[in-house]
């Protein structure tokens, strides 16, 4: 099970509409993210953890599965992915401000800890990689339900796979190993997307791993491993699509390692100048996934300057509106801290 590096041009064409939609979500995520950094710098919010630089990896992957139906286990950096699945800029802003009605956690969790049962986005903690064996467990449940006759394997209204994301640093955790092992042993409908941005906060990848790719480890679990350019949204879409087909067809799990970069600090509390050069960051900014896709689409005649201007204006309106509504929303009352400790017994 050799690691393959996928090239977008090997894959079937993607419709112009879908390509423009991908571009739109990447742009929306970026503008929302940039606004949130600004709000933090203005002292209006307590914390932000960013998706900047990861938009292609997330958007490409998110368009490839049955979003809102298949189980998604995103991690804290997955703003763009969650927007594609169906969470809204207002949902996100309510989380950033910790306001009433915040859908993921009722504003109990820090921002960007996604959860939405209507969209089958499963809640995650801040302990990294704990969600990986959960995703394997949900994938196990899918296969189990199909085997014992609780679910028709071909029913697209039911979840048919579980997809989980994490950073490359988190793959050092035992949780990742045990989740991958279950996925391999039971050949589960499971996709693990490692967004490799080369740093676990400050620690470079070569101090976390003796092998150059996370995907090199996949073979040891009996899982197909793929390395992909995570800044190429179409390549990301194609490799994820292939993994989704494998999962739906009962062909087993896939590990996709998306090589990307985080051109901003780990979080609003980090200062990345202590651990990497400005030259390195500038070099990666030139490989920005949004600028890159914009160039591809423009050259292919799928996107005009007027389209870009319209999208920019629309994104600004949406972000302004989300911020305004979040600011106007009250905080949940203090006694809301006491809710939802135990689920009520079913009668």
């Amino acid at each position, binding site marked *: 099970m050799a690691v393959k590096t996928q090239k977008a041009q090997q894959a079937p064409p993607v419709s112009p509409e879908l390509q423009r939609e991908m571009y739109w979500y990447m742009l929306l995520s970026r503008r929302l993210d940039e606004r949130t950094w600004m709000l933090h710098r203005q002292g209006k919010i307590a914390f932000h953890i960013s998706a900047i630089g990861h938009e292609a990896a997330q958007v490409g992957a998110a368009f490839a599965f049955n979003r809102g139906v298949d189980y998604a286990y995103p991690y804290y950096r997955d703003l763009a992915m969650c927007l594609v699945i169906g969470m809204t800029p207002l949902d996100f802003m309510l989380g950033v401000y910790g306001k009433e009605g915040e859908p993921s956690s009722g504003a109990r969790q820090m921002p960007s800890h996604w959860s939405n049962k209507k969209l089958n986005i499963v809640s995650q903690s801040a302990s990294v990689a704990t969600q990986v064996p959960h995703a*394997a467990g949900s994938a196990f449940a899918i296969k189990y339900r199909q085997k014992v006759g609780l679910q028709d394997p071909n029913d697209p209204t039911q979840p048919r796979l579980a997809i989980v994301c994490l950073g490359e640093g988190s793959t050092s955790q035992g949780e990742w190993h045990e989740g991958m092992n279950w996925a391999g042993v039971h050949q589960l409908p499971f996709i693990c997307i490692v967004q490799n941005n080369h740093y676990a906060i400050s620690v470079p990848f070569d101090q976390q791993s003796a092998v150059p790719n996370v995907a090199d480890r996949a073979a040891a679990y009996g899982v197909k491993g793929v390395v992909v350019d995570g800044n190429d949204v179409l390549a990301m879409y194609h490799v994820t699509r292939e993994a989704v087909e494998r999962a739906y067809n009962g062909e087993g799990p896939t590990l996709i390692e998306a090589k990307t970069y985080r051109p901003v600090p780990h979080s609003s509390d980090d200062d990345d100048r202590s651990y990497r050069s400005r030259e390195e960051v500038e070099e990666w900014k030139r490989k920005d996934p949004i600028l890159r896709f914009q160039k591809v689409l423009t050259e292919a005649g799928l996107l005009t300057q007027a389209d870009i201007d319209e999208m920019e204006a629309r994104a600004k309106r949406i972000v302004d509106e989300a911020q305004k509504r979040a600011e106007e929303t009250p905080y949940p009352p203090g006694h809301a801290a006491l809710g939802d400790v135990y689920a009520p017994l079913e009668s």
Partner: protein
Amino acid sequence: MAEMTLIQAITQAMDEELARDKRVFITGEDVGPRGGVFRATMGLFDKYGADRIVDSPLAELSIVAIGIGAAVAGLRPICEIQFADFIHPAFNQIVSEASKMYYRSNGQWNVPMVIRAPYGGGISGGLYHSQSVEAFFTHLPGLKVVIPSTPHDAKGLLKSAVRDPNPVMFFEPKKGYRAIKGDVPEGDYTVPIGPARIARVGTDVSVYAYGMMAHYATIAAEMVAQSDGIAAEVVDLRTLLPVDKEAILNSFKKTGKALIVYEDNLTMGYGAEVAAILANEGFEYMDAPVRRLAGPDVPGVPFSHDMQEFFMVNPHKIADAIRDLAAY
């Protein structure tokens, strides 16, 4: 009504729940053809097959974590940890994940799973096959913690645990697996999670215990009744989290004297919470110091016979403590 051992009652509960609900499955180490190292799942693999009785890799973290992911996706996992001593690799999953999932998702995602684990000493198990770990988990709102002491309760409580929409830690006193026998009703019944049980009625001293120690406390209460005419009341707590404060206080109102018995180390064991409840809400009824009888504060239960017996609480030690308190 048939007499059976504690472990037979546990097996029967799982058998009936597997038959009742296809969403129920079992995973853990050696639970399949081997039937579990204690034989708790004996016969279930033959009856329900490899799809539903799933031998896990030798890795406790993922036994629990797979259960969480499966429960979130609508199944009803029963996860067996071979010995409670080996639950610690799964601690992060229980603390950070299972206990917090419902709260942190604003009540969207619940985790209907049972984690079964044999616990306790006195079986020549040494440091790593004797631990009483319940106090770690009773510190976690969001979990329920259940410890039966009779076959009747074991079956009824385990059925309640399987049907509960929350994660339930189900600790089984392994020394009592075959030593404790009792009548178990045929067919389906449940014992609710929450209420304690008055195992023996008395007026002189309240003895609070659970698991093997509740069994021993009942024996000790009979001993002091015959030797000294002391009427000890035994409160079998059964559910440690959430705790039945009302039952604890009602007994104390009658006796004014409390002995709390557990086989864990004394300091910060579960008995500390019972003592705090009595000190805070039972002060007006108090006729004597609140006493705790527990294991010594050493890192584990030693293997060699005399050291093990020195560590373990037994009916004689309980009887002495009851006499001492009754005479106060």
